[in-house]
C-alpha cells in the first residue's frame, strides 16, 4: 500500500494540535484554592474593616480619658455612668464587628486588612468625645449603605446587613446624646469610598501586619 505524503503531513499536524491542546492541561495550575468572583466581596469587607478599626479604637481609646470621678461627672448631662457603660458596650460591639468581618474575609479565602494605627486626640470633654463619635458613627452608616448593592454572596450580604443595622442604632443613640434627631431623614444617603476615606483620614494611619 502506497503512503500519501500529504495525508501523512496532515495527520502529523492533527496529532500535534491534539497533543498541544492536551499539554495545556498539564500547564493548568491546580494548586490555587481561591476564586476571582469573591474578590469584590473581600474588597468590600476590607473597606468596611477599615471603618470598623476606627470605630472600635474610638471607644476603646476615647473612654480611657474618662476614668476618674471628675472626668466621669462630665457625662452627667448625658446620662452619667449609664451612658459610659453604653458607650463601652458599643465599643465592644465594634470590636466584635472587626472580628466578624475578619472572619468573613478569611472564610472567602482572602487576607483581611491588617490592623491600622488609629490616632484620636485626647478628649478634653465628654462633649468632644460625643461629637467625634457622632461624626464617626454616621460615616459608618453611610459606608455600609454604599456597599449593599455590591455584594454577591448571600451570607456576606446578611452579615454586612446585620452589622449595618447595629451601626444605625449606634448613630441614633449618639445623635440623641448630641441633641440631634435619631432619624433626621426618611432615607440615608450612601457616601463614596473617597468621601468615607477622606473623613477617616485625620484619624487613621498605616495598616500593616503587627
Amino acid at each position, binding site marked *: 500500500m502506497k503512503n500519501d505524503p500529504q495525508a501523512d503531513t496532515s495527520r502529523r499536524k492533527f496529532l500535534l494540535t491534539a497533543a498541544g491542546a492536551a499539554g495545556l492541561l498539564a500547564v493548568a495550575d491546580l494548586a490555587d484554592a*481561591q476564586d476571582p468572583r469573591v474578590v469584590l466581596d473581600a474588597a*468590600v469587607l*476590607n473597606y468596611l474593616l477599615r471603618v470598623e478599626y476606627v470605630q472600635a479604637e474610638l471607644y476603646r481609646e476615647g473612654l480611657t480619658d474618662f476614668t476618674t470621678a471628675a472626668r466621669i461627672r462630665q457625662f452627667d448631662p448625658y446620662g452619667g455612668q449609664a451612658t459610659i457603660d453604653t458607650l463601652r458596650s458599643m465599643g465592644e460591639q465594634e470590636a466584635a464587628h472587626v472580628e466578624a468581618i475578619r472572619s468573613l474575609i478569611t472564610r*472567602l479565602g482572602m487576607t483581611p486588612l491588617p490592623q491600622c494605627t488609629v490616632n484620636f486626640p485626647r478628649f478634653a470633654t465628654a462633649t468632644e468625645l460625643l461629637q467625634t463619635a457622632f461624626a464617626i458613627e454616621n460615616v459608618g452608616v453611610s459606608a455600609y449603605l*454604599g456597599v449593599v*448593592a*455590591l455584594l*454577591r*454572596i448571600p451570607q456576606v450580604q446578611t452579615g454586612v446587613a446585620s452589622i449595618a443595622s447595629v451601626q444605625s442604632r449606634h448613630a441614633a443613640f449618639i445623635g440623641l446624646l448630641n441633641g440631634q434627631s435619631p432619624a433626621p431623614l426618611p432615607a440615608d444617603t450612601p457616601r*463614596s469610598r473617597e468621601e468615607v476615606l477622606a473623613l477617616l483620614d485625620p484619624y487613621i494611619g498605616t495598616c500593616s501586619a503587627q
Partner: protein
Amino acid sequence: MTALRGRAAALAAFVCALVPAPAHADFLVAPYFAWTRNAETERWVSGGGATADFAIGWLVAGGDIGYAAGFFDPEQDVLDLVASSHVLTVSGHAGVGLPAVSDEQRLLPYFTVGFGWMRQNARDREGLVEVTRNDPSVNFGGGVNLMITKFLGTRLDLRRFSSLRDPFESPDPIVADLERVHFWRFAVGAVVRFGRD
C-alpha cells in the same frame, strides 16, 4: 484529571483516525473582536483574540486565544473597589466544517469542540486581594466563515467555555453555591485563507 486526560486523548485519536487523504488543505487565520457574557453579573464584556484553523475536507482543527477584559468587574462598582479583572483562554479544538469545493462557495459553516486553559484574574484597588487561577476548560461552538474573496472573508462565532475545576477544593459553606466558571462568547472578525490553489 486522569479521566479527563483519557477522554482528551481518545477524542484526539478519534479525530486523527477520521482524517482522509485530502484533495487540498486550507489554513485559516481569524483575528476577532469578542463579547463575552458573564452569567452572574449579566454583563457583556469586550475583548478579542485570534483563531487559527487547519481544514482538510470536512475536518477542522486548530487553536484559539481569547481575552475578555473586566470579566469579573461588577455591573456598578460605585466604590471602584475592583482594579481589574480578566479571563484569558488558550485552547485547541477539532470538529467539522463545510469544505470549500469551489471558489464560488461563500458560506462555510463549522462546529468544533475544544479544550485548553482558562486563566482567571481579579484584583482589588487596595492591592490587598488578588486571585489568579488557571483552570482546564472545555468549549464548544460554531460559526460561519463568509468569504468575500477567495482569500478573505468575515467570521461569526458563538462559543461556550466551561471551566473543569471547582471554585474551591474544600469550600466554606458561604461560597458553596459558586458554580464552575462558564460563559458564552460571541466573536466577529476577519478570516484569511491560505492554501487554496
